[in-house]
């Protein structure tokens, strides 16, 4: 399977905690510089837009250029005040779109 999307979110957290979120997308992230075995340059194809939303509100965004490695991986932090659902969106060239969700329960 190509283009598998992985996300890692703690199941529970205390109110006000700063938690670490991770996401990885299996994607070749063609830089537009790589030569294939037949000598042709592989056309540029990136999954360049990443967005993370908590209950529909954007908490983190990244614009990835060709200097990002293949199978892009991102880790970042978010302060949680309420339970909810994290939504991870990757948007690539040519209308590629990958999404995943993960719920978190916030206590206290």
């Amino acid at each position: 399977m190509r283009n598998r999307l992985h996300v890692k979110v703690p199941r529970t957290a205390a109110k006000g905690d700063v938690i670490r979120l991770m996401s990885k997308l299996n994607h070749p992230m063609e830089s537009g510089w790589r030569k294939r075995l037949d000598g042709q340059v592989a056309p540029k194809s990136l999954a360049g837009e990443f967005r993370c939303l908590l209950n529909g509100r954007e908490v983190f965004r990244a614009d990835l250029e060709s200097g990002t490695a293949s199978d892009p991986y991102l880790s970042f932090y978010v302060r949680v005040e309420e339970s909810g659902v994290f939504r991870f969106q990757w948007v690539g060239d040519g209308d590629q779109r990958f999404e995943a969700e993960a719920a978190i329960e916030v206590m206290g």
Partner: protein
Amino acid sequence: MLSRREILLLCGAVTAAGLPFGGMLREASAAPADAKKLLAELTGGAEQQQDGVKITLPAVTDQARHVPMRVSVESPMTEQDHVKAIHVVAERNPTPAIASFHLSPSNGKAEISTRIRLLQTQVVVAAVEMSDGSVRIGKARCKITGGAGGCG
């Protein structure tokens, strides 16, 4: 069929003569000046301070296609004082731009990790836009050993 010795001699001759092979390599990698221009564009030309930004890269790696990188910025991440964006640029990659990360007070901590590509041994620069409009710069050098760089 060339012997190993002949191939080595040939490679040496090509490099010494500065023939197209060497020229191609130079052409494919941007000059640090391009990276400076790009950074100025990304940050709107604000004055740059050199503190509070830490880039963590391996000092030496032979895995140029997947170089782990962490950028952390000293900031309380409050409404009044937080990191708005982190721009990462590799001076000697064919396309210097690596990524831009957009943060807000809801992040709680200004730290991101990812994996990057580096064509050759070089300095990676992170320009950080703060909420008060100031720009901070952090730098780290990574040595690439063995084989081709990570961009091809």
